[in-house]
């Protein structure tokens, strides 16, 4: 970080003009970040998906559709892109849906400049921000899947360590506290969380395939 790396290019997709401008201001003022473009619709956001893009800040409730679709598209089209969901409530349901689509973290709308910048940097630095509510929600989802009779076990089940970390995160403990509780470094905790996010995305994709096969939308070769 001490060297001067090229500035990270950030695209903003947010339909509310004030919030969009606020986010743009935060990015512009932050060192090492620059605004690659801003859009207020899904279609506009799609146009911003260029190969050089580093970060996508995206709202889920867009006038012409759900931001989740754009997250999926961005994840497919641009390698190594970091995607951050911008949410007014940061409610677990929508955040987890975004993570399943491929998002790396979330940012509360109206958060202070410092917090917003920190969230972006964390994600850029390979971190994975998680709120206790989101952790709790993910735990519930994993448990539901494990007990569901239809699908014996998720393709990518959580390891014991990951589950333990997730349980403590759901209790409200922060990375540092969790790290201390488990005798590992905060970095490892972040790695666990990223792994959990990836598994969530994988499981959600295979679940989607499974559901599509069930519904007759996809035909597997027999």
């Amino acid at each position, binding site marked *: 970080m001490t060297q001067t790396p090229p500035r990270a290019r950030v695209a903003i997709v947010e339909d509310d003009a004030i919030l969009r401008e606020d986010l743009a201001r935060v990015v512009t003022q932050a060192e090492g970040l620059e605004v690659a473009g801003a859009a207020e619709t899904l279609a506009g956001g799609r146009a911003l998906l260029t190969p050089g893009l580093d970060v996508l800040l995206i709202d889920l409730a867009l006038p012409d559709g759900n931001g989740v679709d754009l997250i999926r598209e961005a994840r497919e089209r641009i390698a190594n892109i970091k995607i951050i969901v911008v949410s007014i409530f940061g*409610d677990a349901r929508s955040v987890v849906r975004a993570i399943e689509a491929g998002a790396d973290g979330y940012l509360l709308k109206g958060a202070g400049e410092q917090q917003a910048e920190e969230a972006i940097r964390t994600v850029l630095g390979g971190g994975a921000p998680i*709120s206790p509510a989101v952790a*709790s929600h993910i735990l519930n989802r994993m448990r539901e899947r494990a007990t569901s009779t239809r699908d014996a076990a998720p393709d990518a089940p959580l390891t014991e360590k990951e589950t333990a970390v997730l349980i403590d995160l759901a209790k409200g403990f922060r990375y540092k506290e969790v790290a201390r509780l488990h005798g590992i470094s905060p970095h490892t905790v972040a790695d666990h969380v990223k792994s959990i996010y990836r598994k969530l995305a994988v499981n959600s994709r295979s679940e989607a395939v499974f559901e599509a096969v069930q519904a007759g939308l996809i035909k597997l070769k027999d």
Partner: protein
Amino acid sequence: MLKSEPLGAPTKGAWIIAATIVALQLALSVGLFWANSIAEEARGRHVVDVGAAEASSQSYFQLPDAAFRPVRLPREGCCSSDNLIFRTHLTAEDAALTNPSVLIVSAYDNALIYVDGELAAGFGRTSGPPPNMGRRPQLLRLPHNMVHEGAVVDVAVQRIIGFGHLQPFYIGEYDALYPSFRALGFLRHDLPLFNAAIGAFVAAFCFCAAPLFGARGLMLSLATLGASWVLQHIGLYQTDPLWGAVANNGVYFLGFLGACICLPWFFIEWTSVFSRARPKRTAWLAVALDPWDATARRRLAIASLATLAIGAALISWRLSFNPAVASQDINRVIGWIGLLAMAFCLVRIVAFYLRPGSRDPIAASAFVFVILAAIADISMVRFFKTYGVFLGAAVTFFPLALLLSLAFRARGIFEAATATAEKLNVLVTDREREILRSHEEIRRNERAAMLLEERSRIMRDMHDGIGGQLLGLILQARSRKLSDQSLVSGLEQSLDDLRLVVDSLEQGEGSLTGALGAFRGRIEPRCEAAGVELDWQIEDVGTTPNIGPDKTLQIYRILLEACTNALKHGAPKRIGVLLKRDGDRIEIALTDDGAGFAPGAVQPGRGLANIRTRAQRIGAHLEIDSGAAGTGILLALGA
């Protein structure tokens, strides 16, 4: 299984079967009757007029001609003694025969033939107690050297079966007499044995099946009827049985009496089991014609068996002295009882078949015939002193018709049962659908009620939280008392409350552990900004079903209020949050090390009042402790 189901109109098939059975019975009867009469007309000299003498001893002595009175066979009003001798003389034609033989047509008695006082032919003892010859006709050769014109032929008979008078016999060529002998053997012996076997089968089947069917009385009466029939034949067909001819007579009479009693019993059962109740009428008419109820039939069964037992005792007593005469008497009495019983049966069964819903041509075809045959046979023996053949024909078809009739009824019952089952199925399916529908309705209503409740709760929450806050801000802004700083913090508070509402909804019925975790996500940034360290001591308290979204929200608000108070007034370095479970009790504590306040003295401010009200609302126990060392709030409530 067997019960009164009204029969529909007889099917064409039933009529055809019934007609076939009637035709077969008639054909067999006519055939047997014809064969019987033909057989008795053997090709030889028919000896009808003879001399008869009653011997005083069980051994044969040649009596002088003067001792014989002329009689005509079969002889009326016979006899006071067991030992009888019938005398005839050989004619010139008899003497000229190549193989002179005697055909004894009547079959019960041993007939010993003496020529000129010398024993010439015959079966059985020459002296001692009278044997029973098992209903076989006898064809006996006379030795050539004894045969001459005018020879005295004595047929010595040790009579025991009183009604079986010696029939006219034949003297003729052996080969000429043989066909008649063979035919008589078949008619009198072989065919009845076959019928006895049928009776035995029916008896065994019904005894075994009685517990399985509904109509036990019916099956039992039929079983006893079959057994009586078999008993009669045992009495008739035993050749010189070990228990003696007299006891054997008793067996026969018991069987005869049994048949006479069981046939009405059976018909009363049959015409009652398969009938439906009828309006009451005069007692004697009802007894004769109407169905008997279950109690009456049970009494009938007991009475029938009792009558048999009494009959057996009377028969043994009467046979114990002068058995030859006693046999005639007993036979006559039972014969009359039988005729009366058959008349009763005939009336009853005809009345039954005339009733609508009872018309069963298959059963009728055999039942009416069996009664008629019984009447005919008793009459033939009684009044014509010949052998009955019709019961033999009837018995051959009686069980067949019975089985067919029961099968038809069973089929009817099964069809009715199937139809009923189908109807029930349809009914059950309908009800199931109805229940499902009402279940769905209930669930929809419940859901609607739940949604309504939830909606009104959220409204209440909004009103309680964000509504009031926004209104306050508006009023302050109007009176121009609102600084930019307070506007931002007020709006932030409103958003925080809104987020808590969302969080409380998300936590749903889960665990308070997760709920408090989510809460930390909300207050952490503020604590961080104020440089306050959060000491987070959260224990996993498991599921807390008693703490729903509404209670969770109140807990959030209490904690937020307490937190805000601490940050605003106490300037703490550390805020501790603790969650633990003690049995069914959940304890939440929030402590700070800021400047406290005296709970009683200084006015605690709106914040504390709010906390108290909210704690009260969710039924939680609340303790507030404040002093120089800081403030502590303890909240306890059921999991």
